[in-house]
C-alpha cells in the first residue's frame, strides 16, 4: 500500500461571499522512499497541498490516507499525533522559537512525544550533529545565519524519526549557494531511505529530484 494516497481531494476557502478553490480534485500517490518536488506558479495551491499532506489542515472533501490512516476524517488530536510522530515539516520561514536555544528548539517535538529529558538531549544532539551544527547548540536562532536556521529546522523535523519529511520552499529565503547545501542535505536523507516531498517554484531544483509533480490552479497537470 502506498505511503500517501489522495483521492479527489479539494480545498475551498470562503472569503466573504466568494468561494476560492485552492485545490480542485487532487489525485496523488506517493510511495515509501520517494523524493518528489511539487512545482507550480505562485497561487497554484502548492502550500495548501503541503499543509494538507503535513496534517496541519484538513481537506474540504476527498479522501486522504497517510501511512494507512485516514487523516481526512481524523480528530484534531489524531492530527497532532501524526504531525508529531510520522511527519517532519520544514517551512520556508524556518519557524524556530527565538527565545529558545538551538538545542531546545530541536527538543520541542520530543516534549510533546513524552520523551524523557535525558533521551531528548541525546537525540537532539544527534540530530544537530546530523545537520552539522554541533558547535552552535547553545545559540539562539537569531544568532544564526538563514542557512543555519534552516538546518536547525531540519534537525527538528528529523528528531522524532518521522516516515516523511515535507518542506515548503525550504530554500526560498536562502541564497542559491546556501540553498544548494540544504538540498544536498535532503538528497542525503532521501538516499538513507526517507520519503521527502518538497515544494519549489524553481525548475532547476525540481530537475534534481527523481519525481516532479506539477500543479496549476489547484490541479495536478
Amino acid at each position, binding site marked *: 500500500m502506498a505511503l500517501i494516497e489522495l483521492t479527489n481531494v479539494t480545498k475551498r476557502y470562503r472569503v466573504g461571499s466568494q468561494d476560492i478553490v485552492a485545490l480542485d480534485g487532487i489525485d496523488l500517490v506517493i510511495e515509501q522512499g520517494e523524493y518528489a518536488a511539487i512545482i507550480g506558479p505562485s497561487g497554484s495551491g502548492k502550500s495548501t497541498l503541503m*499543509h494538507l499532506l*503535513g496534517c*496541519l*489542515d484538513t481537506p474540504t472533501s476527498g479522501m486522504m490516507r497517510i501511512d494507512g490512516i485516514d487523516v481526512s476524517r481524523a480528530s*484534531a*488530536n489524531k492530527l*497532532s*499525533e501524526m*504531525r*508529531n*510522530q510520522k511527519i517532519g*515539516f520544514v*517551512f520556508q520561514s524556518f*519557524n*524556530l*522559537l527565538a*527565545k529558545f536555544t538551538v538545542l531546545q528548539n530541536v527538543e*520541542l*517535538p520530543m*516534549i*510533546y*512525544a*513524552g520523551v524523557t529529558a535525558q533521551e531528548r538531549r541525546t537525540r537532539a544532539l544527534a540530530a544537530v550533529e546530523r545537520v552539522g551544527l554541533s558547535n552552535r547548540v547553545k545559540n539562539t536562532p537569531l544568532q544564526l545565519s538563514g542557512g543555519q536556521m534552516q538546518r536547525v529546522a531540519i534537525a*527538528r523535523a528529523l528528531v*522524532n524519526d518521522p516516515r516523511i519529511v515535507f518542506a515548503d520552499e525550504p530554500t526560498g529565503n536562502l541564497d542559491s549557494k546556501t540553498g544548494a547545501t540544504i538540498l544536498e542535505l535532503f538528497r542525503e536523507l532521501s538516499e538513507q531511505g526517507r520519503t521527502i516531498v518538497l515544494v519549489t517554484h524553481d525548475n532547476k531544483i525540481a530537475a534534481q529530484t527523481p519525481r516532479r509533480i506539477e500543479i496549476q490552479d489547484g490541479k495536478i497537470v
Partner: protein
Amino acid sequence: MNLWLGLLLGLKEISSHKFRSFLTMLGIILGVASLLSMFSLTAGMAKGMREYMQQVGGIEKVGIITQDVPIEQEGYAEISPGRTVADAEAILKSADLVSYVTPVSELQSCAITRANQLFRSFVVGAWPDFVPINKHEVARGRNLSLMDVENAQHVCVIGDGISQRLWPELPHFNPIGQSIMLNGCPFTVVGEFTHYEREEDKRRREQAAKAPPVERDRTKRKPPGGAPGGGRGGGSGGGMFDRKNAMILIPISTMFYEFKSASVVGLVDQGPNYKLDQLSFQVADTAAFQQTMNQVQAIVGATHRGIEDFTFDTKQEWFDTIEESVQSTRLSGGMIAGISLLVGGIGITNIMLASISERIREIGVRRAVGAKGRDIFMQIVVESAVIGFIGGVLGLAASFGIMKILVMISDKNAPVVELPAVLISFSFALIIGVVSGFYPAIKASRLDPIEALRYG
C-alpha cells in the same frame, strides 16, 4: 507535556518580562497581603480580648444577680431575704457541680493610708474562693484563709498597683507583714497579687529588659486609677488590667463588721446592711454548664423561698460577641481583600491575553510539531498559576512586613499569624492564578495551527 516543563516554561516567560509580571502580580500581592494581615490582626484582637476575659474569670465564672420579681410574686416578694451569705453557704454545701463560690461585699470608695500616703480606692470583702474565681494569683505571702473569715481578721491581700501607690519610692517592695489603714482601721497585709498585664505588654517589657542600652523605660506598671491607658481605645488597650491590679481583698466578715454594720442614709442609721454586692461561683466543668446552673437555681431558689428575684450573669454573651465581631470584621475585610484579588485576577487574564497574542506564532510552531490543544491550554494555565503562586508568596512576605510596621507604630494587640489563614490566603492566590488563566488558555488552545503560523 508534563507539569514540571510547564512550570519551567512559565518561569522563563515571567522572568523575561519581570517588570510587567510584577505589575500583573500587584493585585494578587495586595489581595493576599491584606487578606493575611486582616486575618492575623483580627486573630490578635480576639486573642487579646479572650485573654482579658480569662483574666476576669473566664466563661466558667457565673454571677448571681438580682432581678425584678415576676408580677405574680410581687405581693409577697419580701419573704425572700435577697442575696446573702446564706446563699453562698447553701451553694458551698449542696452544689457539687460548683468548684468555688464566694459572696462579695464592696466598699466603693475607701480611704487607704500608710504613713503620709493617702488615696481612695475600692475594697472587696469576700471568701478565699474569690481568688480562683476571678483568676487572681497570689505572688507573695498568702491568700485569705477560712480562719480569717471565721474570725473576721483584719488582714488583706493587695494588688500590685496598690503596693506601688503605698510605697512609691520602693519599686519592688515586699509589703507582707506591713500595716495599712482602710478608712482608719488597721489591716495587716498578708499577701500580694501578681502584676497583671497583657501577654503582649509582658513580652515587650521583657524584650526591653533584655536590650538594656536602649533608653526605653518601659516599666509599664501603671498606678491604678491613673490616666487610663493613655487614651487607647477599646477594652483591649493596656489599661484593662488597672482595676484588677488595684484589688484590696479582705474577709467578708471583717467587711460587714467594720464597714457595713451601719448604713447611714440621710443622717439616719438604717442598721446593718448585709446584702451582697456580688455572688459568684465557678462552674467545675463547663461541659456541664446547664446542669450546674439548674443545680444552683434550685439551691438559691430554696434560700429565697421560691421568689425569683435573682438570675444568672454569664460571660457567654461576651464570648459570643467577640466571635461575632471577629467574624464580621473578617467578612468585611475579606470582601475588600477579595475585590483586590478579583481585580488582580482580571489583571492576570488581561496580561495573559496580551501575552498569547504576542505568542500566536510560537503557539503555531508548537502545534505544528505535535502539541495538542490541551498541551497549549496547560502551558498557559500553568504560566498563569505561576504568576498567582509568586504573587501569593510575595503577598505573604508583604503581609509580614505590614504587620511588623503595624506592631511598631501601635500598641494594639500583636497580630497572630495562624497557619490556616496563611494557607487560605495563599490558596486564594493560586486559585485566582489558575482561574484567570482559563479564558486565555482556552483561546490559545483553539487557535488554528495554520492561521497561527501565518500570523505576524
